[in-house]
């Protein structure tokens, strides 16, 4: 290399003031980093000599080229290529320098600091992190609000469900089972309603819970609780007499029932329009129906068990699924069946109709119609069909005695209605079913007895009939009163002999005959027949004699009329004694002694078939001289008796007749 070695001197590394401002602020030149110092040092390496040499060479080349190629156009990229070549050379020098420095091992790169971030970079970093945090906060805020909304909705849904469930729990047993199955946990919490009553029914046949006893509580689409039952799963007890259809009397029943047992379809379509209150009430009614249906099933089971026991009064004539047919005597058959009770009782009545053999339709009011029977006595064919107790009342009675029996077993309460315990069967007495059949038979028979009694009573004007409640399902009791009319009593009280009456026993003005029916035995008890002892003694003391005897239905009217007639005779006898006349009293006649051995007697004639009245009166005279007789008589067959038919007299006329006879005998006698 030629030329002089040029030496450059660095400035002293002293901070040199760059400028100073008016307020004293000093400005220093900006400090350069290590790298910049290196770069500046490298820059200071003077490559001018190399560049000059290169340039000379190039000039020479150019001259050569130019001399050689003057005519060729200069390439437009020529300068760029030369610049790049120069840069390339410089870079290779630098790289060699750096490699030499590195290979020296005395100098290593100590490190490189990150360039200090400019303030705007700092701020932008801060801004980005702050923005991300704000974004997170916003997310969080939205999340909280969303979960608050979701929780509110869920609470509202559950409040409906649990509110309804609590209202149901006030009346029914609600049980819970944790269900660990798959599926959404919220929709299946395992609630169920238990309708089985384990405090009753300790006997084995009825301790078997039916499939309906436990009902699952589910959620419906709106989150409200819903109970789904298979249709026609509820049974109701249906009772009827064979050959007799019930009229459409219980139409109100049907209305109530269809309102109660809400069908599936009505519930689903009307659910949205019903308020929660109404919905809970509908569910209540549904549960009531199911509960009753379970009880009906148990009743029927129990009846079947009783039917197998062959107890007194039970006479099974037919058995099918859910159907039991019994005969209770007197040609009457009844059936008890379980029918599905959904969609009202109309279907139940129809199925019962199809099971009946007889299709004759007879209106089935029982006792009310019979009381109108005064006009209907002459139709004996009606007698058979009247008098059936109402179908519904039999159903209710059956349910009641079964329930009481179950209750009795559980609580050991005293037996109020006289129903026997089911345990006694066979020889001891009728079981429940037997008792029921006997009660029905008794009812039917007692209505026939009542018809007879009414026949008797309505023909005789001075008789009154009264029915007594007996509070026993197999006993009935009536009383027939014979009442002395008030006019006679008043007349007596005004007579001068009334003082005696006050001292003595008052003459009875009312005679009664009691008719008691137990199962199918009629017992008549009445006063007024002459006492045998009193007949012998002929004393005026009245020993109140009471007759008691059994009879059957055919003889009942005659016996009653006889009883009444003897009561009338007795009354007349007492009246005569009151007046002071001695009369003889026989079974159905009262004899007055006239002078000369004559006797006149008032004789009662009893005829139950007599339409105008049961008791008619005859005047019979014995042993008298016909020519002294002043009354007209009819002579029969030359008998020494003379009879006069007086007809059906009421008590006033009888009394006056007797008084006439009294005066007759009085006038003739010495009294």
């Amino acid at each position, binding site marked *: 290399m030629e030329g002089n070695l040029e030496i450059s001197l660095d400035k002293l590394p002293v901070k040199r003031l760059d400028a100073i401002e008016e307020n004293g602020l000093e400005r220093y030149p900006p400090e350069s980093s290590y790298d910049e110092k290196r770069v500046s040092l490298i820059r200071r390496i003077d490559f001018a000599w190399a560049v000059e040499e290169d340039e000379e060479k190039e000039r020479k080349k150019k001259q050569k080229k130019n001399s050689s190629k003057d005519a060729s156009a200069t390439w437009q990229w020529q300068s760029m290529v030369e610049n790049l070549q120069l840069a390339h050379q410089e870079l290779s020098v630098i790289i060699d320098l750096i490699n030499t420095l590195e290979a020296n091992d005395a100098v290593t790169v100590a490190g490189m600091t990150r360039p200090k971030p400019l303030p705007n970079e700092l701020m932008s970093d801060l801004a980005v992190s702050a923005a991300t945090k*704000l*974004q997170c906060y916003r997310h969080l805020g939205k999340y909280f609000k969303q979960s608050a909304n979701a929780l*509110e909705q869920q609470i509202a849904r559950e409040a409906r469900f649990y509110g309804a469930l609590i209202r149901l729990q006030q009346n029914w047993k609600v049980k819970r089972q944790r269900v660990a199955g798959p599926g959404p946990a919220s929709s299946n919490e395992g609630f169920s309603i238990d309708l089985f009553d384990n405090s009753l029914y300790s006997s084995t046949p009825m301790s078997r819970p039916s499939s309906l006893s436990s009902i699952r509580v589910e959620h419906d689409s709106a989150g409200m609780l819903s109970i789904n039952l298979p249709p026609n799963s509820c049974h109701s007890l249906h009772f009827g007499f064979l050959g007799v259809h019930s009229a459409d009397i219980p139409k*109100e029943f049907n209305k109530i029932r269809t309102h109660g047992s809400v069908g599936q379809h009505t519930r689903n379509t009307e659910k949205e329009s019903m308020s929660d209150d109404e919905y809970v009430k509908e569910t209540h009614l549904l549960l009531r129906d199911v*509960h*009753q249906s379970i009880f009906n099933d148990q009743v029927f089971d129990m009846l079947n068990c009783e039917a197998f026991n062959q107890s007194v009064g039970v006479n099974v004539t037919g058995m099918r699924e859910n159907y039991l047919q019994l005969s209770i005597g007197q040609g009457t058959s009844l059936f008890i069946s379980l029918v599905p009770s959904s969609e009202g009782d109309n279907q139940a009545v129809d199925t019962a109709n199809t099971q009946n053999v007889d299709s004759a339709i007879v209106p089935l009011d029982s006792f009310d119609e019979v009381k109108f029977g005064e006009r209907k006595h002459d139709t004996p064919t009606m007698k058979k069909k009247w008098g059936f107790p*109402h179908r519904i009342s039999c*159903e*209710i009675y059956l349910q009641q005695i079964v329930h009481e029996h179950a209750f009795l077993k559980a609580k050991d309460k005293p037996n109020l209605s006289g129903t026997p315990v089911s345990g006694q069967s066979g020889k001891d007495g009728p079981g429940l079913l037997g008792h029921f059949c006997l009660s029905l038979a008794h009812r039917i028979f007692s209505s026939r007895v009542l018809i007879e009694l009414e026949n008797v009573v309505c023909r005789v004007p001075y008789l009154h009939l009264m029915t007594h409640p007996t509070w026993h399902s197999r006993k009935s009791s009536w009383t027939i009163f014979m009442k002395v009319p008030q006019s006679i009593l008043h007349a007596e009280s005004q007579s001068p002999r009334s003082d005696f009456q006050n001292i003595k026993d008052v003459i009875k003005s009312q005679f009664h005959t009691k008719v008691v029916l137990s199962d199918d035995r009629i017992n008549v008890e009445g006063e007024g027949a002459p006492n045998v002892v009193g007949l012998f003694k002929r004393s005026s003391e009245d020993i109140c004699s009471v007759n008691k005897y059994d009879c059957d239905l055919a003889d009942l009217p005659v016996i009653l009329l006889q009883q009444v007639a003897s009561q009338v005779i007795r009354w007349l006898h007492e009246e005569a004694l009151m007046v002071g006349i001695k009369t003889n009293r026989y079974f159905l006649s009262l004899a007055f002694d006239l002078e000369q051995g004559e006797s006149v007697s008032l004789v009662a004639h009893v005829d139950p078939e007599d339409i105008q009245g049961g008791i008619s009166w005859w005047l019979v005279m014995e042993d008298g001289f016909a020519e002294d007789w002043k009354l007209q008589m009819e002579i029969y067959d030359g008998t020494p008796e003379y009879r006069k038919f007086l007809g059906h007299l009421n008590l006033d006329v009888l009394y006056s007749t007797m008084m006439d006879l009294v005066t007759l005998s009085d006038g003739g006698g010495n009294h």
Partner: protein
Amino acid sequence: MDSPTQNTSLQRLQNVEKRIIRVLELAGGVMDELANPTGPRKEFINNHCREFMKMIKDIQVTLRDEIKSACEYRPFEKCDYSSRISNEICCKKLEYVLSQLDAMKQTIDEYQATI
């Protein structure tokens, strides 16, 4: 606590649920306020946080009371299903008697109409 207005424990527990919802809403509101680009307002956040803490305290007190007062669970001590059945039977009797009385009244009306 609005204990004089809440009669049953069920209502109190429902109130607790409503308070939980309110607490969540407050938290959401605080977060939103913190995310406010112009910076959170201090009184706003203070109020919310105060209400939050108060509600938490109310919830805690109510729940503690309810848990203490919850009685032992005795399932189905006295089952009234049998008296329910006898009531149903009585209802049926009543319905029947009513129908009979209605029939009697109808008869009377018909009789009086024909007079």
